[in-house]
């Protein structure tokens, strides 16, 4: 399910509301908020567990129940949640050791926060969360960040001091963002099998009151929720949220049309035009932190190790047409760092669409067109398999456009699509020649996992010591200037080497009832449901 985790929904970034932004903003600021009402959301996958640390998905439902100390907002910037501020060096929350090899992060917790069963939330819960998730007996989908921590001390109920064994600039995006576990109900229990997995207890705006497997989750207002709006009204506004599990995307759209659900967060592009024409619905474009890329397996066919071949492919790709084929929603990109990040470089080597130049490069490198139009050198034809995720229609469509475009410059691509574990296996172990797909990251991405020699997601056999060094720097400094410079240099170098072509950034399309107010989309892997307390339904 890894790819689902990477690719299912996601949303984070500045939202771009198509045509309706004015209404949303106005209602967000005005006095239109009303308490009450129930919102039914369609989920396109079946929930495995409601435990944020065990689920193979992004955790849409979980985000309404569990809260972290901090969370990313719509701009992918961290804001305090259960902590009173986001620790930084400037505010004294982070202290780096003199040898620059370790750091201490101190969180001040929000007073008066209660679990949805009325028990107080304290620093002991934070420490308990780390201990529990770290425990090898606990089988987690994600234990990110636990190994970086050497110890946690809790001088008082509202102070947490976390000792890191390295300088970890990504400390925010992991452990304590996902959600805090309640010590008072889980202590001494086996979290693998505890009922927490079906009925999680959190400090969030909602609490699970009914979970029927394979069908739905009903969440009611958490009566002890800590957040209040500016007028002092206790949040959340909504009485109830219901998540309905609807795995088939056509059915999901049907339910939106029939009004059986009022919201869905990753609607196929092909369905958007008819849904936006439907009265009572609005469409929101959410540019997520993901990018589509075409990878070359450098351990694969020898021709792929020829930089001229890779450059020819890049020049031969018409990203604008690929975007157009997908309804015009995808945004063509030149680098693997999505534009929303400040360190996304605009000065990387670019490969604008130029089929003549592509042919010229291939010709110069000795690849001559054969009778079937496919080029070859020394009997080696430029004919490769290209893998994509089977059944993912946007990727398969884009793949077919690329196949047609490559044919015109004399390169033959044959589809070799896989799904599920087989795809994962091939993707991570390099069981492909070319691969087209997407990655989605947190708000603090580490690019080392993708492009450094030993990166766990580097299945393509790419290795460049200079890249390794730049990424090591980026992943071990808290100084934004140093980090940004390293990441910019990394992009330039990467686009020179061209092990991977950045193709487009595909936004996710959110469809909601036009009665929903206060909704702010979120581009990060914390999902659009990371702050539901301010949502309300207009009468």
């Amino acid at each position, binding site marked *: 399910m890894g790819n689902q985790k990477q690719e299912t929904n996601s949303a984070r970034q500045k939202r771009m509301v198509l045509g309706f932004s004015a209404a949303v903003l106005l209602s967000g600021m005005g006095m239109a908020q009303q308490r009450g009402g129930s919102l039914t959301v369609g989920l396109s996958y079946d929930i495995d567990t409601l435990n944020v640390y065990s689920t193979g998905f992004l955790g849409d439902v979980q985000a309404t129940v569990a809260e972290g100390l901090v969370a990313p907002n719509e701009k992918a910037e961290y804001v305090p949640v259960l902590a009173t501020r986001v620790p930084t060096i400037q505010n004294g929350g982070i202290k780096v050791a003199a040898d620059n090899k370790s750091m201490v992060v101190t969180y001040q917790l929000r007073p008066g926060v209660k679990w949805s069963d009325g028990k107080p939330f304290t620093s002991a819960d934070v420490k308990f969360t780390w201990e529990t998730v770290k425990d090898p007996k606990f089988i987690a989908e994600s234990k990110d960040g636990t190994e970086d921590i050497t110890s946690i001390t809790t001088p008082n109920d509202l102070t947490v001091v976390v000792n890191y064994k390295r300088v970890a600039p990504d400390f925010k995006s992991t452990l304590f963002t996902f959600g805090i576990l309640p010590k008072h109900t889980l202590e001494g229990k086996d979290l693998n099998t505890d009922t927490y997995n079906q009925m999680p207890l959190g400090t969030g705006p909602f609490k699970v009151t009914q979970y029927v497997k394979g069908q739905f989750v009903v969440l009611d207002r958490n009566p002890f929720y800590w957040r209040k709006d500016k007028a002092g009204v206790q949040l959340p506004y909504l009485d109830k949220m219901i998540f309905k599990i609807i795995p088939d995307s056509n059915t999901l759209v049907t339910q939106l049309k029939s009004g059986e659900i009022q919201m869905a967060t990753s609607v196929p592009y*092909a369905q958007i035009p*008819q849904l936006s024409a439907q009265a009572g619905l609005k469409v929101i474009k959410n540019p997520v932190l993901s990018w589509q890329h075409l990878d070359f397996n450098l351990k694969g066919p020898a021709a792929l190790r020829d930089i001229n071949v890779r450059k020819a492919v890049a020049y031969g790709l018409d990203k604008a047409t690929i975007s157009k*084929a997908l309804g015009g929603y995808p945004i063509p990109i030149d680098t693997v760092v999505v534009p929303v990040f400040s360190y996304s470089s605009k000065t990387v080597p670019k490969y604008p669409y130029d089929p003549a130049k592509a042919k010229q490069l291939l010709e110069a490198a000795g690849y001559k067109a054969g009778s079937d139009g496919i080029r070859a050198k020394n009997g080696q034809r430029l004919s490769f398999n290209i893998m994509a995720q089977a059944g993912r*229609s946007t990727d398969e469509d884009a793949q077919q456009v690329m196949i*047609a475009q490559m044919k015109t410059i004399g390169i033959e691509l044959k589809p070799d699509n*896989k*799904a599920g574990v087989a795809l994962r296996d091939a993707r991570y172990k390099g069981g492909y020649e070319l691969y087209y797909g997407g990655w989605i990251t947190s708000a603090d991405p580490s690019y080392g996992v993708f492009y450094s020699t030993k990166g766990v997601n580097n299945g393509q056999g790419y290795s460049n010591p200079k890249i390794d060094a730049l990424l090591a720097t980026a992943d071990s400094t808290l100084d934004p200037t140093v980090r940004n410079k390293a990441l910019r240099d990394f992009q330039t170098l990467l686009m020179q080497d061209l092990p991977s072509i950045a193709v487009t950034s595909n936004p996710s399309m959110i469809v909601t009832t036009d009665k929903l107010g206060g909704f702010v989309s979120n581009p990060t892997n914390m999902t659009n449901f990371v702050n539901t307390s301010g949502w309300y339904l207009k009468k």
Partner: protein
Amino acid sequence: MTDTLKRSPASRKRPEGFWPTLIARFLKHKLAVLGLVVLIILGLLAIFAPFLAPYTFDGQDASIIGQPQPPSAKHWMGTDQLGRDAFTRVLYGARISLMVGLFSALLATFLGTLVGALSGYYRGWTDAVLMRVTDVVLCIPLLPLIILLSGILRPSVTLLIAIVGSLSWMGTARLVRSQFLSLREREFVEASRALGGGDNRVMFRHILPNALGPIIVSTTLSVGGTIMLESALSFLGLGVQPPTPTWGNLLNYASQWLTGAPWLAIFPGLMILITVLAVNFLGDGLRDAFDPRN
């Protein structure tokens, strides 16, 4: 009793020859003839698709990419989202769909008839062993197993035929067996045996023709069934890979355009309907022709 014996197929002589009679009988069945003609036309269309199609099946028109275009003089069945000619794709789709449907149904029928006949005729140990094998294969839910195999083996068209054919003979086997079980008790079989007919002769000359009706019906239905199965696999993302068109994956692809571009769905759907209709009429006609009592 004498009366029955005289009219039973075992004792019936066919001086005019078996096949000419069969053909003559078949030709009387107008719908069956029509079905055969339609199938021949479809077969020819499939075989000569590269010469008949106005475009290539993966050729994209960049000027209209992104939005399916309705049928026009240039594109008789419209275009899909990637600016490809739908008529061309339906034509090419016929190749794969017919091939998968026909060959896997034939493979299944062959295997099934063989196993069923042996089992039902000899009974005893042969029956026990063959039925045990049949049972073991039967006891594996077909669709899930095909889904599993598709995930492991990445089905090419040939492999798909092999997988589907070798996993769907059991129905025919049991059907044939039950026919044999019941037919071998009939008087004409006993008579034929009493007259010194060898096992093979009794089995394939005397019993099998009598069992042909249900076998043919089962085969024709399974051609349709296999075309459906291919579309079901497409629905789960495990069918023949794009851009190679099949009626199943064309239809599945069209489902997201149901309201926006219905023509994408109508034509492959019609083709499946016409094919299955034709195959079934043909099956009907053949059964009537084979049936000596008509």
